[in-house]
């Protein structure tokens, strides 16, 4: 991959490989443009534990100061906590320096608007427009503002969650919990958070040196160590976060990882059982959610993939919860309109405590689907041709084209979707049986090859 192709400027921010495409100059330039875009005010800056984080934090600070903003540095902080801090500190915006679940050699800037939501498509386009203009509105030295540090920003996040869950109920249950923080931002906060909920915590990957000791994506195949910890320590539940702690995957007491798709389904099972309401999920979410939502006579809407797309639709529909099955994302607007592993953990524990049931039992009550996915290299241009071809070929199935192309059958669906962040196309199929899902994937891979 060349330096040109591994830089991704998209609605989810600016991502690149450190030292190749993502450089201090570029980062300072984007930070300055963002400062210009949100106006000269407070901008919250937080980061995950990546070794390049400090370097980019300095570049962001230089860029922000140069256009007259006051950077408020939170240091290492989960992305949802950064979003909440923007809201609580009444800042004009925020920048999260994190490549989320991307490998360690990547880093990225994610831009947060004044309400603590990521910039949406329109806003991101406006920001890019400013970036692409040749002149920055640099301010004079007399208009410079000093950097401020805010060390305890996680408290905002914790307090909001504790206000909306039954803390006493969870404390009484005295769960034993294993948690895998992927040596990310969670390594600084998660253990204490769970301890405050009365849990006995078995932590893994909480070394704070910024070296990810497992692959950062919290998917079952990367969670063997957590699996061992849950089994040997006989925990009630296991949690796995990604490096910026927005995603969550759970594991039952046998150490069986529950697919990341079920994180949002479990949360829906709990929230809707108390209060039915509208639910929004991205197009890449398991059919199990549809069935749970139906069970509680609620309504489900599909959005494009990407946190901001789900959040925007949630606002529009006034949804009670939402999420992204594909990335283990739970969005609980009671706390904040953002993907949040901490709300997720609290909700799981509350459900187990309220129902006096093990996670295994709860999972067993939810219809089972099997999902198989594959990705293949495909340039953005080829991807367009492929999608057009498939849309024509399967017109009789009335494909959903909110994002990529999803074909639905009664007991299965398949989604063909080019990635926004990498030059690949993904094929995801879900069916009531593993083999059926696999054969769907294989079938569509060869169809894509034929169309490329």
């Amino acid at each position, binding site marked *: 991959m060349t330096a040109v192709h591994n830089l991704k400027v998209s609605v989810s921010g600016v991502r690149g490989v450190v030292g190749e495409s993502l450089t201090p100059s570029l980062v*300072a*330039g984007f930070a300055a443009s963002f400062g210009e875009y949100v106006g000269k005010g407070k901008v919250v800056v937080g980061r995950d534990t990546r*070794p390049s984080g400090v*370097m980019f934090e*300095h*570049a962001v600070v*230089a860029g922000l100061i140069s256009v007259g903003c006051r950077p408020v540095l939170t240091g290492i902080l989960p992305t949802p906590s950064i979003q909440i801090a923007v809201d609580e500190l009444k800042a004009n915006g925020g920048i999260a320096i994190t490549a989320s679940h991307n490998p360690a050699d990547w880093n990225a800037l994610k831009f947060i608007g004044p309400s603590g939501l990521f910039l949406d498509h329109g806003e991101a386009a406006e920001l890019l427009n400013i970036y692409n203009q040749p002149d920055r509105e640099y301010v004079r030295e007399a208009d410079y503002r000093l950097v401020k540090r805010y060390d305890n920003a996680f408290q905002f996040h914790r307090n909001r969650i504790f206000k909306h869950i039954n803390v006493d109920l969870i404390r009484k249950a005295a769960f034993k919990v294993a948690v895998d923080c992927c040596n990310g931002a969670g390594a600084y906060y998660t253990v204490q958070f769970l301890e405050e909920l009365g849990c006995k915590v078995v932590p893994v990957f909480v070394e704070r040196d910024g070296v990810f000791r497992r692959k950062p994506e919290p998917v079952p195949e990367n969670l063997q160590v957590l699996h061992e910890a849950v089994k040997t320590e006989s925990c009630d539940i296991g949690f796995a976060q990604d490096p910026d702690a927005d995603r969550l995957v759970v594991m039952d007491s046998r150490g069986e990882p529950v697919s990341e798709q079920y994180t949002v389904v479990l949360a829906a099972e709990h929230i809707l059982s108390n209060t039915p309401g509208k639910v929004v999920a991205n197009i890449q979410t398991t059919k199990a959610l549809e069935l749970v939502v139906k069970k509680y006579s609620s309504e489900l809407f599909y959005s494009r993939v990407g946190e901001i797309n789900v959040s925007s639709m949630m606002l529009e529909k006034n949804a009670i919860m939402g999420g992204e099955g594909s990335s283990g994302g739970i969005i609980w607007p009671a706390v904040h309109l953002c993907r949040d592993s901490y709300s997720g953990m609290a909700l799981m524990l509350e459900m187990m405590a309220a129902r006096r049931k093990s996670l295994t039992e709860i999972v067993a009550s939810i219809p089972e689907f099997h999902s198989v996915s594959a990705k293949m290299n495909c340039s953005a241009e080829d991807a367009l041709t492929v999608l057009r071809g498939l849309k024509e070929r399967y017109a009789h199935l009335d494909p959903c084209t909110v994002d990529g192309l999803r074909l639905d059958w009664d007991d299965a669906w398949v989604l063909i979707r080019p990635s926004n962040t990498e030059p690949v196309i993904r094929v995801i199929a879900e069916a009531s049986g593993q083999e059926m899902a696999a054969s769907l994937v294989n079938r569509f891979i060869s169809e894509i090859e034929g169309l490329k």
Partner: protein
Amino acid sequence: MRGRIAEGLTPPVIIDFASAIGTYLDGGKIVVGNDTRISSGMVSSAVFSALMSCGCTVIDAGVVSAPELHFLVPALNADGGILIGAGHHPAEWNALVPLSRSGAYFNSVQMQELLDVYHGRRFSWQRYDKCGKIDVLPPGLSESYVELVCSQLNIPAISSGNFTVIADFCNGSGAHLASLFAEKFGIHLIPINDTLSGYLPHTPEPRPRSSLQVQSMLKVLKADVGFVFNTDMSRVAVVTDSCETLSEEYTFPLVVEHVLSCRAKEESCVVTNGCSTMTLDKIVEKYNGILSKVKVGQAHIIDRMQEVKAVIAGDGSGSIALGSSVPGFDGFMAMGLILESMALKNCGSAELAARLPRYHIIKRKVQCNSGHAYSLLRRMKGMFPDAVLTENDGFRFDWPDGWAHLRASETEPVIRIILEWNSLDGAEDKVLQITGQLERMVSI
């Protein structure tokens, strides 16, 4: 690399220049210090990020004076340093000065190589796991610097003088060492403008018009001497106990007179630039020293000082460097040497100044953009057929009664004129003649 904030000096420019330094120093250990200017925080953040991207280990010295940084680089065994600060420049300006392993400014060869890296824009940005880091400064090094300065001075003599001294730090980085020096020197130091805020109480160039605050307090407080520093302690002007502010041109001659009179051997070498006062020539002549003149700029002066092992070097901007101390201009050392001179000679600061042979110096600048300046200067070359012309960093014209030096500034869009004459009237006449001629040519 100097510039105005928001105009020349923007984050991308700073990052590229610091990346060039990081690339040139091959990802080594680099000490970064800054003065108190409001923009220095932005500049150092940009510098940190650029150096880390080149894999450098950054030692963050925070707010330090220039002489301290000249000391810290070799003391920490670092590969280089970067001094961030505007020194004598007005508000809105800032600068990045690369320092070599010895702690001195880059010499002209190093600077040329660095500029080639900068203009080539091929920087050695490192992979994510090879990014540099930031280390804090080990404690106690400021004290070591103060010790080094004191070790070069006759401290018992200074403290026996029971001096009352006013020091104007211009809210710059020198203020943080004020009380330590006062204690070591055994003087009663009255610091003014000594916050580390970076707000400029007056023009930071130490010259008579910026010394009014010290001057007005001197008599009331019965002080023996006053010192006016710039914001990074590289320049200083002296205010005498008769409430006269000596032109910054005389700081160096005062120090040279003292150093040559009491501690130098025959044929001691003194380094200065081509447009320093005739006073200096007379003093060095008196002590049978050798005066070596180089191009204008700290880099040239310090380079020559190290090359010829000069006892002292300095220039007419109020800067001095002692050969046996740090390799850079040091306002604290200037203060120490002048106090030592007063103590050993048992005479007041006004009398010390009165003993110097003095001429009349006039400095002027004519606004002129840099591109135009060089061709203008070339046309001035034939202007005075009656003078001896020396081409060194601009043009110097020598007459029997005085001299004039004209050069295009490297830091501002102006032509600088320095003129010295043995009579005030003569000086004023000559300077009018020159500026008049230049201004006419600029306006055409």
